[in-house]
């Protein structure tokens, strides 16, 4: 069999590219057109960019030269980290507690009528549409600067997401234990307590743990809008252009997040195996 025979056998493979996959070419062209459009739209110029980056060079150098390392204020950094962790912890716990009833009420498994479920779900969508930083900004306006606003921001933003996840976990639960309890004459409360809760509780706890992880990240940035914690320490140092200390704090944040990830993953695995 020569090459020509093979080509005659499967001619469609050897069509030119635009004929073989017009969709691919079309996508490519539209992405390129869009990028050209956006260069215009954002007044992007390579010169400005390179200028900016050359301005960043001294910053990057001063980030890694820690001259007066021993004179830094480690106390405030440590307190900042503890505050951030506390914010994440309190916010997650409060959101988890509120999300249990909300999530159950938004679940098919518990509330059979669709109207209240629909209302709660749209309400949760509404909460989720607003970023956590916007919530923090609003709470800072109402409660003043400080970690309390951060806790409330995490609490509200997480209630939106956790309740939704909880309700989905309840939706996906097994019907049989519940039916068994109903058929043996259990009340509504004990049906929930012994039929549904044992199934969903491990999922609830592991999701809350997961949220604690992600909150320890978001609590960092809440400090930037005035909710205290390590983010405040970081943004103050960036404003004052103490780049070396800022970079040190960034490294500390990365380590903190990595440690929390490890611990929480180990706990979650333990929980799921139980």
């Amino acid at each position, binding site marked *: 069999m020569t090459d020509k025979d093979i080509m005659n056998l499967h001619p469609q493979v050897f069509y030119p590219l635009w004929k073989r996959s017009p969709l691919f070419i079309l996508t490519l062209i539209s992405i390129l057109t869009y990028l050209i459009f956006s260069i215009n739209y954002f007044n992007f110029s390579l010169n400005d960019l390179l200028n900016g980056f050359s301005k960043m060079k001294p910053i990057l150098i001063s980030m890694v030269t820690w001259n007066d390392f021993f004179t830094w204020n480690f106390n405030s950094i440590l307190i900042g980290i503890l505050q951030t962790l506390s914010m994440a912890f309190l916010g997650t716990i409060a959101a988890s507690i509120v999300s249990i009833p909300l999530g159950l009420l938004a679940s098919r498994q518990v509330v059979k009528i669709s109207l209240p479920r629909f209302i709660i779900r749209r309400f949760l969508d509404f909460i989720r549409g607003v970023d956590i930083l916007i919530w923090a900004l609003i709470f800072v306006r109402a409660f003043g600067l400080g970690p309390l606003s951060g806790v409330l921001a995490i609490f509200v933003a997480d209630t939106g997401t956790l309740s939704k996840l909880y309700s989905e976990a309840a939706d996906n639960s097994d019907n049989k234990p519940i039916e068994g309890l109903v058929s043996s004459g259990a009340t509504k409360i004990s049906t929930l307590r012994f039929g549904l809760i044992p199934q969903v509780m491990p999922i609830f706890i592991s999701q809350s743990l997961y949220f604690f992880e992600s909150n320890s990240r978001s609590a960092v940035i809440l400090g930037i809008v005035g909710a205290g914690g390590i983010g405040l320490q970081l943004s103050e140092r960036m404003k004052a252009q103490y780049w070396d200390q800022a970079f040190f704090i960034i490294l500390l944040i990365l380590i903190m997040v990595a440690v929390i990830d490890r611990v929480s993953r180990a706990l979650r695995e333990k929980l799921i195996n*139980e």
Partner: protein
Amino acid sequence: MSESLIKNHNERLKVLIRKRRFWNIFLSIGILLGLIFSSKIIDINASRLLSGLPRLGDYVAQILPSLETNSLFLDSKTEGSISYWYFNLPKYLHLLFETFNMALVATIIGSLIALFLSFFAAKNTAPNSLIYFITRRTLEFFRGVPEIIFAILFVWALGIGPIAGIIAMMLHTTGSLGKLFSEVHENSDVRPREALKASGGNWFSEMKFGLLPQVLPNLISYILLRFEINIRASTILGFVGAGGIGQELYLVINFNYYEEVSAIIFLIILTVISIDILSGYLRKNIIEAE
């Protein structure tokens, strides 16, 4: 016979219950200690919370528009109409368009870079373990630093404006998508690539014909998910001066232009939810088409 069975069963149940009880107590004590400790650290207490609550209620009442049913659809000069509430709508729409474009550009460029790097960050496609290690750690760094921190840095270097925000989001997108993409590569089927190798294909054609066709639907679905996240992120990057509608929101919140706060927030929610629905629909179709 059956009695011993029941006894055996009871015994096992007892062990199970004891184990579970231990876990419950352990968890409860841990949570309780955490609560006490953390509320000490950030000095939170019931009286502060309670004194703040009415202020929160006042604030919410202030930012909500005072709409009147009989003048709801009148022009923007009449108080109580929707157009009075949204008198600044053209400006908002302009900013919203900018926000949308920031997210889209950052997603496109970020995912292209992520696609390029992901081959070096996957165990089964990386040329050697040193490059694998370096790429992984780099991606971790870009993923670990919050984008708003990058944004502060770039605003300082490039000046106030959307470019700083785009680059910040792009870096974060590269970090997280690069990791996800490389995991998709690692989970892909190795047989098509082996066949290409056996018939004399080079590394490039191995990737193009053996790997990409199987991973592409997954990659696109991740890109869409990332686009949703970036839309959210681009609404807040303006807080530090990195462009988009966040800049305006920050301004109206700090200057107490009360009704404009709710006007902008409702617009953001509307945008975020509609993008989520659209992208969710697309993702579902892509996965089903697979």
